[in-house]
């Protein structure tokens, strides 16, 4: 086993954008054992900004240059970003379990700095969640043995899931939401149309597309972005944003959120300010926790 897994971190930060990086720096200053998950570019929203005029002290800087400055700052403080995507996070009571592929990390406190993902749910999607609508085809496939399954796929990985499901289900429809070559088993029917609505009675029975209707027992929607309440089951989300108070606390004890993920305005300095507040409150939470022991 990887040693990283056996130790419990004080704080796990999910997201390496301006909010996450600021949180990491402030928690590190307070001597907490942290882990921060994200990407090599830190944040594409930062990296790709042509010119930034509202970042105080850096008039006219490009996103690329600012990303470099962030990276230097992280390196200076000996913070390494863990380049992994967190798939799901479970509130276990005393700690959070973060799942990354088949690995598990543990942390006493959590800061969600995942940014915003665009894309609204389909009509009927939330209504039928758990009653025919799901987000993990491979997880629930055995429940659809000899049934009809429709997969709405946004990426290449969704094709692997479709192939797996097709070994168990009697019929699989695949609705691609991306362009490219499709690498699908022969018994999968590709439907090139735009999904509009999911309908049913007590349970899903149809997907309505622009031009056709598909009778189906289940629908799996496989997107790139995980919405915050899917990422952390039980997390309170309002209008697509994580609900926080002035201390950046969510409804789950020890779990904080910062940046675009908590709501408008979507700006660097707002995100960073929130990241800092979240980190400092997480530190107080951790200190309270250790005093109780």
């Amino acid at each position, binding site marked *: 086993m990887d040693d990283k897994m056996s130790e419990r971190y004080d704080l796990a930060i999910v997201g390496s954008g301006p909010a996450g990086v600021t949180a990491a720096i402030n928690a590190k200053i307070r001597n907490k054992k942290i882990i921060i998950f994200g990407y090599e570019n830190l944040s594409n929203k930062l990296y790709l900004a042509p010119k930034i005029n509202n970042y105080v002290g850096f008039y006219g800087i490009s996103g690329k240059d600012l990303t470099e400055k962030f990276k230097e700052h992280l390196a200076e403080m000996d913070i390494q970003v863990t380049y992994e995507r967190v798939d799901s996070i*479970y*509130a*276990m009571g005393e700690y959070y*379990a973060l799942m990354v592929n088949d690995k598990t990390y543990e942390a006493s406190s959590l800061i969600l700095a995942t940014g915003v993902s665009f894309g609204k749910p389909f009509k009927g999607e939330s209504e039928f*969640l*758990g009653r025919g609508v799901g987000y993990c085809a491979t*997880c629930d496939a055995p*429940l659809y043995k000899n049934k009809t399954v429709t997969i709405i796929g946004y990426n290449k990985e969704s094709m692997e899931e479709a192939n797996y499901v097709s070994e168990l289900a009697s019929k699989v429809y695949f609705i691609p939401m991306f362009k490219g070559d499709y690498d699908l088993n022969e018994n999968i029917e590709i439907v090139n149309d735009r999904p509009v609505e999911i309908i049913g009675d007590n349970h899903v029975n149809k997907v309505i597309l622009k031009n056709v209707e598909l009778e189906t027992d289940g629908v799996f929607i496989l997107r790139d972005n995980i919405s915050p309440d899917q990422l952390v*089951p*039980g997390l309170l989300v309002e209008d697509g944003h994580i609900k926080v108070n002035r201390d950046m606390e969510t409804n789950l004890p020890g779990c904080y959120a910062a940046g675009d993920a908590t709501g408008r305005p979507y700006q660097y300095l707002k995100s960073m300010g929130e990241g800092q507040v979240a980190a400092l409150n997480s530190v107080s939470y951790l200190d309270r926790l250790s005093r109780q022991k």
Partner: protein
Amino acid sequence: MIKEVMDNTFNEEISSSDAPVVVDFWAPWCGPCKMLGPVIEELSNEYEGKVKFLKVNVDNNPVVSQMYRVSSIPTVMVFKNGSTADTMVGFRPKNSLKELIDKHI
């Protein structure tokens, strides 16, 4: 304590109980189910005597799983007087499960 039930013992276990019955539908291949297991275990100890806890392995018990249309696991159902009173799909933190159960005591 959580009792494991099967297709052929399910009805008896549900209908013979005066207390609310919490049923955890799970399977060994389901990651979130593994995380939920210990949480339910803790709850079953806390509610000892007040609520009955059962679990159903959906792999081995297709009849019950189909009958209650379990389409995603974990699914936690609360039964009262022999019929379903509440359903919760997916992993949930302990407090949310407590709220769910408390509604029915």
